[in-house]
């Protein structure tokens, strides 16, 4: 099972990824519920509040969840929501 933990300690690297994800999210012009729904659809396990906090650089997430958020943003922008 997932550990559901709030992140693994790799501060510098994680912070960079968050910034990139936040910037991509801003640029993609998609709604948070839209992103979260998609992210959930591909197997994401963090709730919408957590994703929101992550994209506002307030919270850390496990690497796999960050990957899934990034993939969600990429797949949504690849051919529209």
């Amino acid at each position, binding site marked *: 099972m997932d550990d559901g933990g709030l992140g693994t300690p790799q501060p510098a690297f994680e912070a960079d990824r968050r910034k990139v994800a936040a910037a991509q999210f801003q640029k993609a012009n998609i709604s948070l519920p839209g992103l979260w729904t998609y992210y*959930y*659809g*591909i*197997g994401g396990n963090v709730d919408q509040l957590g994703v929101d906090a992550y994209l506002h650089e307030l919270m850390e997430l496990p690497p796999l969840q960050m*990957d*899934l958020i990034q*993939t969600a943003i990429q*797949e949504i922008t690849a051919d529209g*929501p």
Partner: protein
Amino acid sequence: MAENDALPTAEQLQDLLLESPGFTEFLLGLTAISASLLGGETPLLCAITVERETGPVTVASSTETARSLDERQYAFDDGPCLTALREQRTVLIRDLQADESWAWYAGAVADEGIRTILAVPIPTDTGSRSALNCYSTQLNTFGPETVADIEEHAASLSRILRLAIRVHPSDPYPEHLRSALRSRAVVDSAVALIMAQNRCSHEAAVKLLHLASRSNNRRLHDIAEDILHHASNIPVIAGGGEK
């Protein structure tokens, strides 16, 4: 039927119900029928609101303007259409600018050029309530005869609307949520297969799936679907024994 040509035929309504994939689409078609039958020299904007005890309110409108006029009533939780719906009586605002009791609403919708409003209830079974709303930019659109015609028109929609409410139970999940749930079900099944094949943890399986999607440059959901349909292409942990 002869004296009121604003009544749809039963076939027309049944066809609409048969051809509509969902309740929202049905309601949308119904407003289009109303608008086309009721509109005279000046076009009428029509909207139909259905409120159910269980589930959300559905609003369908013949035009974007009618939609925004209806939505503003919900923002205030009051308005001619909501009054018609909740009190099940006809509400006629002959002159929106002159009517003091609706002055606040006139202010709220002033920018749309609407001069007069008629809202009539559509009878439904207990557990749901419905109303048809007509908006016009022309004063004097709703004379006594027109009001009677529109009331009759609304009553003629009652049977098919009651049927539609039974056929399409209220759907608490909009389409994008349902598609996410379907996608998630596929992904979860694929993950379970990967776990069984590799005897690995859930997290490792999701990682593998994600990796497969990245390296093949394909959508994660598509990869998951492939795995389900061709159980042979299950990703395998390379080298064995990392996890």
